């Protein structure tokens, strides 16, 4: 036994290694990314680790491994599960042989996501058990248990951490290493092929399994009742730790039901809890999963307070403060007074494209090239480049989900002929779900310009390799797919590949591509600045600056600030990209030696 301060995601990976996982697949997505990154660092022998092209691919790869009797782990964020829904829904019927665990990270807030969907509800929808860790140390234990459960019931099991579990660390006691279970190998049986008659039979079996799993959860170590007063509190996930801190700090007399298995809810344990209390307050982020399960068990006998009663909000992340107020209100106690602190007016600080980001140069060139058209629409996608929405670029008019920029642009072009539609997509997103949209544009002959912002990495999630980078997840050489060749193979005939920092050439390429009738493409190729060594030179504003601020107003680089009527470049942030020098009307921005 040893201890390590682990982030929740790291604990999940270490738990899976201890459980003898052999195949690990996923697609990067905040807050799930560091699970696979831990495997990359740990280099555990006998574990095959991959960044898959997308989550559907990842789950299917893992399913094949699990069919063959190997333990497999799939990782993704909650939005990724939408992409993987097709295989998941079928897999709950087909089942698995080796343990298959899906670590799906939810993002209440949301901090870095398009939705606040609740994967516990998804588990219920797919008839699959779900474990809801409240901390990193519990995530370590639950991951191991999830593999056991998966093999016992021959079903995939979902582990659902949230941001405050994934990105929170704790001191975790790590068990001794255990040998990987042997792999039986793929056994040919008709049950691996889904057909209507089999689906009917399997659906029936699946419903029976739900009760058996719920029975198993009656004695799960992840559910616990801490006896106190006759006021009941039930909590799931990180809300349990918020509740625990408030209850301990104020020594509140409550009976606390910690729920680690929100679906299927253990009915007898729920009844036992309800029998000890006169009412219940349910604390859980996102959907009222535990609340509705307790409402069903209570059947009107015991009042259940939560989201349905307006005691707690449906959206957003919970906090100590929010839970404290809900608990004090529920106990009819006076909420501790918080003396308000008068703060001066604070500036907002939204995330921005980094100084020297090639996306800024690409967006600016596209903007300059399309300025003269009566209307141009810029469809965006998911990645760092979504930040192109901010002023002064204002180059993201739409953003829906992975791969949707290319297709939404087609719909706008159909509905509004004559409007110039440009669809921006990153290289990793292009491989993830961009390609079918490109094929559709060619097949339907729709006049859009696809812009692939190729920075040679999956930048937003922390620089993971993808099929275009020539490296696999472990950093070993892999065949690098060429995006221009792929666009050609998809049928696009008008393609320009440029370095976005070659400003004049980029503007020219955009002009030609947009002018072309029918689908066209521009690939802007320059590596992510965060992965580059800083050059020994920077750009500096000299005495001839007239203080017009055009540089800031046009490109909005975070290294530039107005100071005493002129512009100053923060040398520690400047990467010498030279975009600002292209904008300055008086040539006051020049290259010089770096001092910081």
């Amino acid at each position, binding site marked *: 036994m040893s*201890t*390590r*301060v682990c*982030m929740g995601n790291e604990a999940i990976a270490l738990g899976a290694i201890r459980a003898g996982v052999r195949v690990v697949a996923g697609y990067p997505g*905040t*807050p799930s990314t*560091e699970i696979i990154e831990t495997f990359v660092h740990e280099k555990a022998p006998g574990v095959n680790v991959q960044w898959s092209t997308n989550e559907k691919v990842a789950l299917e790869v893992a399913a094949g491994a699990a069919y063959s009797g190997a333990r497999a782990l799939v990782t993704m964020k909650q939005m990724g599960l939408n992409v993987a829904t097709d295989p998941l829904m079928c897999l709950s019927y087909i089942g698995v042989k080796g343990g298959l665990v899906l670590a799906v990270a939810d993002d209440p807030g949301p*901090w*870095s996501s398009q939705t606040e969907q609740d994967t516990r509800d998804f588990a219920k929808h797919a008839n699959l058990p779900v474990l809801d860790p409240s*901390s990193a140390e519990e995530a370590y234990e639950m991951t191991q248990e999830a593999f056991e459960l998966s093999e016992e019931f021959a079903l995939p099991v979902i582990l659902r951490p949230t941001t*405050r579990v994934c*990105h*929170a*660390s*704790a*001191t975790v006691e790590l068990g001794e290493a255990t040998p990987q279970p042997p792999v039986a190998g793929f056994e040919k049986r008709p049950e691996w092929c889904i057909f209507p008659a089999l689906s009917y039979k399997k659906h029936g079996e699946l419903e029976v399994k739900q009760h058996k799993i719920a029975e198993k959860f009656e004695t799960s170590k992840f559910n616990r009742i801490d006896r106190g007063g006759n006021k009941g509190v039930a909590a799931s996930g*990180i809300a349990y*730790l*918020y509740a*625990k*801190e408030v209850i*301990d700090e104020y020594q509140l007399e409550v009976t606390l039901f910690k729920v680690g298995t929100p679906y299927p809810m253990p009915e007898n344990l729920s009844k036992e809890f309800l029998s000890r209390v006169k009412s219940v307050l349910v604390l859980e982020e996102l959907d009222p999963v535990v609340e509705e399960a307790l409402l069903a068990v209570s059947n009107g006998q015991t009042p259940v307070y939560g989201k349905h009663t307006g005691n707690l909000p449906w959206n957003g992340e919970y*906090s*100590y*403060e929010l839970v*404290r107020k809900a608990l004090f209100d529920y106990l009819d106690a006076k909420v501790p007074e*918080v003396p308000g*602190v*008068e*703060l*001066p*007016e*604070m*500036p*907002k*600080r*939204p*995330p*921005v*494209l*980094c100084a020297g980001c090639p996306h800024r140069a690409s967006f600016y060139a596209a903007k300059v090239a399309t300025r003269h058209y009566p209307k141009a629409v810029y469809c965006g996608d998911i990645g*760092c480049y979504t*930040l192109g929405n*901010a*002023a002064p670029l204002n180059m993201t008019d739409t953003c829906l989900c992975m791969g949707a920029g290319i297709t939404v642009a087609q719909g706008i072009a159909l509905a509004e002929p004559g409007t110039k539609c440009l669809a921006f997509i990153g290289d990793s997103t292009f491989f993830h779900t961009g390609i079918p949209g490109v094929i559709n544009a060619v097949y339907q002959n729709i006049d859009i310009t696809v812009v692939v912002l190729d920075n040679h990495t999956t930048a*937003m999630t*922390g620089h993971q390799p993808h099929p275009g980078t020539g490296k696999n997840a472990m950093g070993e050489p892999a065949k690098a797919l060429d995006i221009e060749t792929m666009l050609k193979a998809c049928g696009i005939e008008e393609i320009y590949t440029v370095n976005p920092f070659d400003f004049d050439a980029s503007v020219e390429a955009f002009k030609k591509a947009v002018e072309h009738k029918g689908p066209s493409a521009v690939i802007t190729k320059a590596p992510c600045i965060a992965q580059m060594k800083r050059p020994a030179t920077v750009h500096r504003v000299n005495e001839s600056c007239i203080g017009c*601020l055009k540089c*800031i*107003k046009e490109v*909005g*680089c*975070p290294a*530039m*600030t*107005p100071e005493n009527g002129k512009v100053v470049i*923060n*040398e*520690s942030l400047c990467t010498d990209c030279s975009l600002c020098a292209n904008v300055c009307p008086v040539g006051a921005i020049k290259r010089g030696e770096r001092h*910081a």
Partner: protein
Amino acid sequence: MLKSVLITGVGGQGTLLASKIMSEAAGRRGLFVRTSETIGMAQRGGSVTSHLRIDAKNVSPVIPSEHADILIGFELAEAARQIPKLAENASCVVNTDTLVPTNVALKQGKYLADEYLAALKKAAPHGLFINATPLAIEAGDARTLNIVLLGAAAGAGMLPFSVEELKDAIKACVKPKLLDMNMKAFELGLAAAQ
């Protein structure tokens, strides 16, 4: 005894590493640690915080309002933004250097440096306020700001670790080829506080 340390700054300034070093130091002493980090979109130049809660298990990884014992601010406005988190008698180390957001340069919002400093001094009268950026540049790279501030916090005696414990933790967390520069940054911070 529970100590809650809040580190704040702008995405890219290295709050994560500072938090990791303190977790490492706590772990080496056998203390139970919880931390919570800002990872994701906000890392691209947005407001970021790292929360550390040392030596207590039944608490959340996020420091509640009025519960931070120590604040380490990498940027002036970001430090001021966290004033509501400060416990009574909290101590702080704040870099007085500023990073003015682009939206302020575009006339969306204000950056009131003098007011932020005054508010911080009022909230933490015994705080240490230093311009740490030149020290980081002196150490060899502006990006060692995080280690300069860690050194300053250690020098001011605010952290529940000894200087030696922190140095060992830095050695365990920093790439070997960057160690000398970071050690210099730590020493400069230490000296600035003493």
